[in-house]
């Protein structure tokens, strides 16, 4: 799937991935890959600007996990993030239904 198509929906994808539970960057990439059956293919490092932006917007919180050989930042969804996820899901489903109605009979 083209990167440009994913870029506009990355926030929704990350919020959905975190809805399953807290996770660090690589774990979130694994969740997205598994749940999409490998459809999403974009530079994995690009999720970090998105995660930082969502955290600044108050949708996520993060902390350094302890007890490891190297530092790991773990993200989790805040209540405001769950509300944003719900809103974006509704918008996405409306959009997807509309697109399907338009292109449904196309060759």
């Amino acid at each position, binding site marked *: 799937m083209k990167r440009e198509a994913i870029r506009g929906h990355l926030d929704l994808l990350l919020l959905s991935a975190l809805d399953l539970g807290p996770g660090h*960057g*690589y774990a979130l990439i694994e969740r997205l890959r598994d749940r999409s059956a490998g459809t999403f293919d974009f*530079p994995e*490092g690009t999720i*970090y600007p998105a995660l930082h*932006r969502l955290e600044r*917007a108050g949708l996520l919180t993060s902390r350094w996990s302890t007890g490891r050989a*190297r530092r790991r*930042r773990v993200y989790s969804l805040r209540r405001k993030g769950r509300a944003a996820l719900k809103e974006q899901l509704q918008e996405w489903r409306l959009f997807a239904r509309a697109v399907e109605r338009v292109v449904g009979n196309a060759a």
Partner: protein
Amino acid sequence: MIEDYLRQLRRALGFWPKARLLAETEDHLRSAATDVGEEEAIRRFGAPAEIARSFRARLGWLYAGVALAGALAFPVLSYPIVENSLPPAPWPGDRPPDYLHWQQDKVAQLFLLGVAAGLVAAATWRRGGRIRMAACVVAALALVGMAALGAVLSVQWADAVPGTPAWLSSVWLGQCLLAVLAAVLTGRAALLSRA
């Protein structure tokens, strides 16, 4: 290979505060490397320049914001100096001739437009997006217009009021430079955001 990648990313980020991102990147790459090997992990992560680009866009807006704030504050801070350095005007009353008066009005209106747009930019700063970008662009354009018109006004005022100190024109020169700097940095930030 991962160490080399981190060095490249550090360089690509430039002045951006990078400790957290580098720590997260190292953790990501080392975790991925246990599954697919270092080379594939780095390939999947993406080129350092691509990762650094979005952080540079945010830094660009920070620079633009500081420049806009400076260009908006300068006329306020310099006004007492100008007001107290001007000699008495030769015309009766407080109202200058029409050709100077309308320029004063326009300079004031452009300044107020810049302040209003600056407040919108400040209110939407954390959220970012198109509203913030539009507000910064409007503020920058208003400041450039104000500085340009103010420079013309200062020259004509000096001609109309004998004894006006020549150094006062440097105040508007300073305003012009700050306004142009703010406009350039705003434009650069907008371009980086769209890249």
